[in-house]
């Protein structure tokens, strides 16, 4: 366990741009205890970009991100990652087990191949996401929800302390969503921090302990119950009339959660 004096993740004045076009700017965010943390906002708000910037996948124009008080390079093995499902070619000639084993490569390092220990771990991770019986199936022959759970199992195989998930519920059936949220809840219970880029306000209100509302900058952040207020949501989604209905329901759902 990390001493409480060092935040798990801190964004300090982070600005990210693609070419000359800034995508998110002046992001300050500190997460100091294990929880389920949602990054919420409209399409094109820069949520995924923020996540990728934290993982060093897109360069920062300004600011810095630290994990356990250290730069990412020194603690990479403690940070797990679930990319968006559409970013890979699911026709790739690998099976479910192969993909989950990729989660162990970081620890294995160059040239060492996964052995019995890694296979046992991968099997265990598949079991946790409910896919043990499709371990030898080619990954294209899975439903969207199953593919997403394969990615989650791969992140579990990283045995990290912080997990970043990029839109893990996009295009995923309700049952898979439930299963994924339960796995994330278990991770939190085991003392991990789980940061999820998420677009659905209803499930956000239901599952996340803390959220950051992002629309190119952080509009508001803190405990879900204090943050998902009508005013904050209006400010975040200003100009996104298409989600007004969602907003109303989210606010209603918020009333039901303790």
């Amino acid at each position, binding site marked *: 366990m990390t001493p409480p004096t060092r935040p798990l993740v801190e964004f300090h004045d982070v600005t990210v741009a693609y070419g000359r076009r800034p995508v998110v700017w002046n992001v300050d965010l500190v997460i100091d205890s294990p929880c389920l943390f949602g990054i919420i906002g409209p399409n094109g708000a820069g949520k995924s970009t923020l996540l*990728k910037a934290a*993982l*060093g*996948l897109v360069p920062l124009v300004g600011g810095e991100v630290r994990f356990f008080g250290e730069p990412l*390079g020194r603690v*990479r*093995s403690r*940070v797990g*990652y679930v*990319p968006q499902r559409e*970013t*890979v*070619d699911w026709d*790739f*000639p*690998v*099976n479910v087990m*192969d*993909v989950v084993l*990729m989660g162990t*490569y*970081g620890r*294995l390092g*160059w*040239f060492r*191949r996964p052995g019995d220990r890694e296979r046992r771990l991968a099997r265990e991770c598949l079991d946790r996401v*409910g*896919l043990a*019986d*499709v371990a030898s*199936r*080619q990954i294209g*022959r*899975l*439903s969207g*929800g*199953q593919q997403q759970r394969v990615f989650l199992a*791969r992140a579990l195989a*990283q045995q990290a302390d912080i997990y970043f998930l990029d839109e893990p519920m996009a295009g995923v*059936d309700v*049952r*898979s969503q*439930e*299963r994924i949220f339960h796995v994330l809840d278990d991770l939190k219970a085991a003392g991990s921090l789980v940061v999820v880029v998420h677009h659905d306000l209803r499930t956000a209100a239901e599952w996340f302990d803390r959220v950051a509302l992002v629309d190119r900058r952080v509009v508001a952040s803190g405990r879900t119950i204090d943050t998902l207020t009508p005013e904050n949501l209006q400010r975040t989604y200003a100009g996104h009339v298409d989600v007004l209905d969602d907003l109303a329901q989210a606010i209603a759902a918020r009333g039901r959660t303790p």
Partner: protein
Amino acid sequence: MTAAAGILAHNTVVVALGVAAVGFAAGVVGSLCVLRKRALAGDAAAHATLVGVAGAFLATGRRDLATLLAGALVAACAGLGMLVLVRRFTRTRDDAATALVIGVSFGLGITLVSGLPAWGYANSAGLEQFLLGHTAALTARDAWLLAAVAAVAVAAVAAILKEATLVAFDAAFAAATGWPVSGIDYLIVGLVALMVVAGLPAVGAVLVTALVVIPPVAARFWTDRVGTMVVLSGLIGLAAAAVGVAASAARPGLATGPLVVIAAAGAFAVSFLCAPHRGWIARRAEAARGLTVRRGDDEGEAGR
């Protein structure tokens, strides 16, 4: 049989084995290249090689295979370097940049190779054989050189298969978990350049990329595992190279390269039609039975 005929036959066999080894290695390396979706990089490298062949001859005055191929390798890498530079500094898109490098470097290469005799380099005759490939001119010594290069390439793929597969499948995850993605990419493309150069004497600059691309594409039909695909692709490349060399030995007038490519295309056609599951016939049969490729039934499993 006279002694001379015996030596000739021995030479043919050794050359065939050397070229077959190159075919195997090209198929193996090509698998990584195709899985990483860099099939055209090999083409850019291949078309740049002629400049290097001519350049090596001009610089050293020698025309032994090792010298010429060393020049070709330098030119192939330079061509790939140009590709990177054109993309980065002119904001030209990938496909256009590749076409540009292919065209320009090939034009330059043809000019040099065809111009040398006209400019009085009498002993430069034969360099144009690198255009379409011609194994009749190869010696046993040359074949050993090619086999050694093939062995190095296969060993390199065996060593980095885990890392290369990870990058090819999910580069973002690879980068997030600390792997040097561009380094591994350069290694893959570098190995492709090496195999393109090794395939040059037998298949020629115009067609050698087919030896890197067709075998893996054909192999993919038969298997859903990377490891199996790599080996199978190597075997298809080996068979295509062997058939091409044998056919051009039987008919000395025919260039080897086109025959190798036709043999590889035959393997592709058979794979596309006959492979179980992914082959055309199998898919038609499955569709006729009303069983489209079965996607996982989430309903059944999530409930458990």
